[in-house]
């Protein structure tokens, strides 16, 4: 699939509910293009506004996350017309694949520890900065040689809160008490 006027070819890597992810080149560098598609069932005006808003929010959250010291792929370009984001291509397996590999060939303790620590640190920084990941799964985290990068799925909404950690602990205690699902009363 070729985008009009652009030389770089696009190779589809993945399709999700919100967007298609392609591999491409950006000024000679390997890159990833995430193109949000429009939902035909939506009213066209609403659809375009929503998609654009999501696009801008993603770009904003990514820059905020970086400022907080969370490792993310670098954003190379934002296209408001095509609703596409171009990121740096991060070399490395998804954490999910690393863990699956551990399942097959045995656990490498230090590596596991290292990854777990980095995940914890990254999420801690995000939450302290008022950002919520929104889709925290191991398939959304990449391990780049030497570091751990949280992939682009920061759909996040901003929330103002100062004592995040206490709130989270309290919530955790609550959930532990009553079990994960809430009661169907009320």
């Amino acid at each position: 699939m070729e985008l009009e006027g652009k030389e770089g070819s696009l190779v589809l890597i993945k399709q999700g509910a919100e967007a298609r992810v392609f591999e491409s080149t950006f000024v000679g560098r390997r890159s990833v293009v995430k193109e949000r598609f429009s939902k035909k069932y939506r009213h066209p005006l609403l659809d375009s506004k929503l998609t654009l808003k999501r696009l801008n929010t993603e770009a904003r959250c990514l820059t905020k996350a970086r400022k907080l010291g969370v490792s993310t792929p670098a954003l190379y370009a934002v296209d408001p017309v095509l609703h596409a984001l171009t990121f740096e291509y991060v070399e490395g397996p998804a954490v999910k694949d690393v863990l699956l590999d551990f399942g097959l060939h045995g656990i490498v303790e230090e590596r596991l520890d290292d990854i777990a620590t980095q995940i914890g640190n990254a999420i801690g920084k995000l939450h302290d900065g008022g950002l919520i990941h929104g889709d925290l799964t191991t398939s959304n985290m990449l391990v780049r040689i030497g570091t751990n990068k949280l992939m682009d799925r920061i759909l996040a909404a901003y929330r103002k809160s100062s004592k995040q950690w206490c709130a989270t602990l309290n919530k955790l205690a609550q959930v532990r008490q009553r079990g994960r699902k809430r009661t169907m009363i009320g």
Partner: protein
Amino acid sequence: MKSFEIGIGGISLSLALFVDVTNSKELLELMQAGTLEPEVAFLNASLVPVVFPVLAAAYKTLVAKSRESLTTRTLHSELVYNYSGSKHISESLKRCGISDSTTYILAARFGASSDEMTAIKGHIKGTEIGLDELETRADRAQIHKHYKISVPELGISSVSDAIICRISARDAL
């Protein structure tokens, strides 16, 4: 001098780096009068640690041009504007472009022939050096200040990536 393929419409960007430039005032005047031929962009080279962010700005510029949505008057002033992390046009042109006292300049032109590049070099009273010198001559403090790059960010990113993120996300903020 080196040319880079930007990837839109087959247009390339030619870059040339100069030190000890003595006629910035003159260059600025010619540019503002619109009489500088051929059209060229002058970037404050102290803000350029490596070529890649300039190419990203060039990409953004060509996309805007292809959609007839330039924010500034010319293609080359747009390149300077797009190198900035700020949406404020005149401020960006002043900071990322040259001033009367600039001595370290990166000249850029889209789709330049070698004759045009020679003409451009003729206008600049300075010494041309290789683009590989960008890294050592960049003013890190100025870059960190202009792009508001925090210390935590530097821990997880190169300066080049930090600049590119700001260039690309600027209009989404």
